[in-house]
């Protein structure tokens, strides 16, 4: 479930190469530090972002990550939207199974990323693309 309002202007990073995945990690790290997430929460969020950015590149054929600071009255947090216009995911249950991969991965990206964040939303349509929104809140 996605709640909370955006603060300030979100930063967008295009994802069309290996190096862009590195840039997404760095952008997310900087934002997480600014919002004062704990060290462990920063680490979890950056790791989740790294998994999803790689999927956007490899399976989505490229796309973007939009990183924003949000707040819901009590807490602040970081929200990231990964979007691509790739093939979409035909069977979500399967895709979220630990170990399932159609590539050569470990099949932990989607399921692992979901475990690492507080909110996780996915929209996908075959032939249209995939859009994943994650949020991590300060404690």
């Amino acid at each position, binding site marked *: 479930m996605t709640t909370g309002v955006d603060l300030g202007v979100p930063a967008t990073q295009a994802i069309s190469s290996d190096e862009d995945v590195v840039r997404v990690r760095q952008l997310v790290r900087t934002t997480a530090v600014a919002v004062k997430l704990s060290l462990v929460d920063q*680490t979890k969020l950056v*790791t989740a972002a*790294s*998994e999803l950015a790689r999927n956007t590149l490899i399976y989505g054929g490229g796309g973007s990550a939009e990183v924003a600071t949000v707040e819901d009255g009590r807490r602040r947090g970081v929200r990231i939207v990964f979007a691509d216009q790739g093939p979409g995911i035909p069977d979500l249950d399967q895709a979220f199974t630990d170990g399932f991969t159609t590539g050569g991965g470990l099949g932990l990206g989607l399921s*692992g990323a979901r475990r*690492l964040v507080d909110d996780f939303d996915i929209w996908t349509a075959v032939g249209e693309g995939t859009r994943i929104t994650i949020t991590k809140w300060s404690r």
Partner: protein
Amino acid sequence: MERVPILKIGDILLVSIQVDMSDQTAIQLQEDLAERIVATGCHGVIIDITALDIVDSFVGRMLSTIASISKVLDAETVVVGMRPAVAITLVELGLSLNGIRTALNVERGMELIAASRIDEWDEADLDENAETTATS
């Protein structure tokens, strides 16, 4: 593409990862290491990840792969310097780092490698001592 340097210290190859590696850099490191193990005949590889602030499934797999490659090339791999936050995140991500030996720091890693090589080569000596004790 950046390239991670590999140092040779005695019978050990030391890799200290100092940058946020792209996937290509990680793949290149695997290849460079395999070549150096064969070229030097080293029996130990230490990968120092003190500077890494995350290990995702790609890098985690790279560490496992390096350990397996080393093994088929008759070398032992130890990963050292994993940060607590990284260890916590790895577990929650679902990565078990099977087959990877870890140690606190480079020194401990070297001790571990030395000990396991002695095991392999000196089992014979050990047995001899045991024998002496048993018969006396």
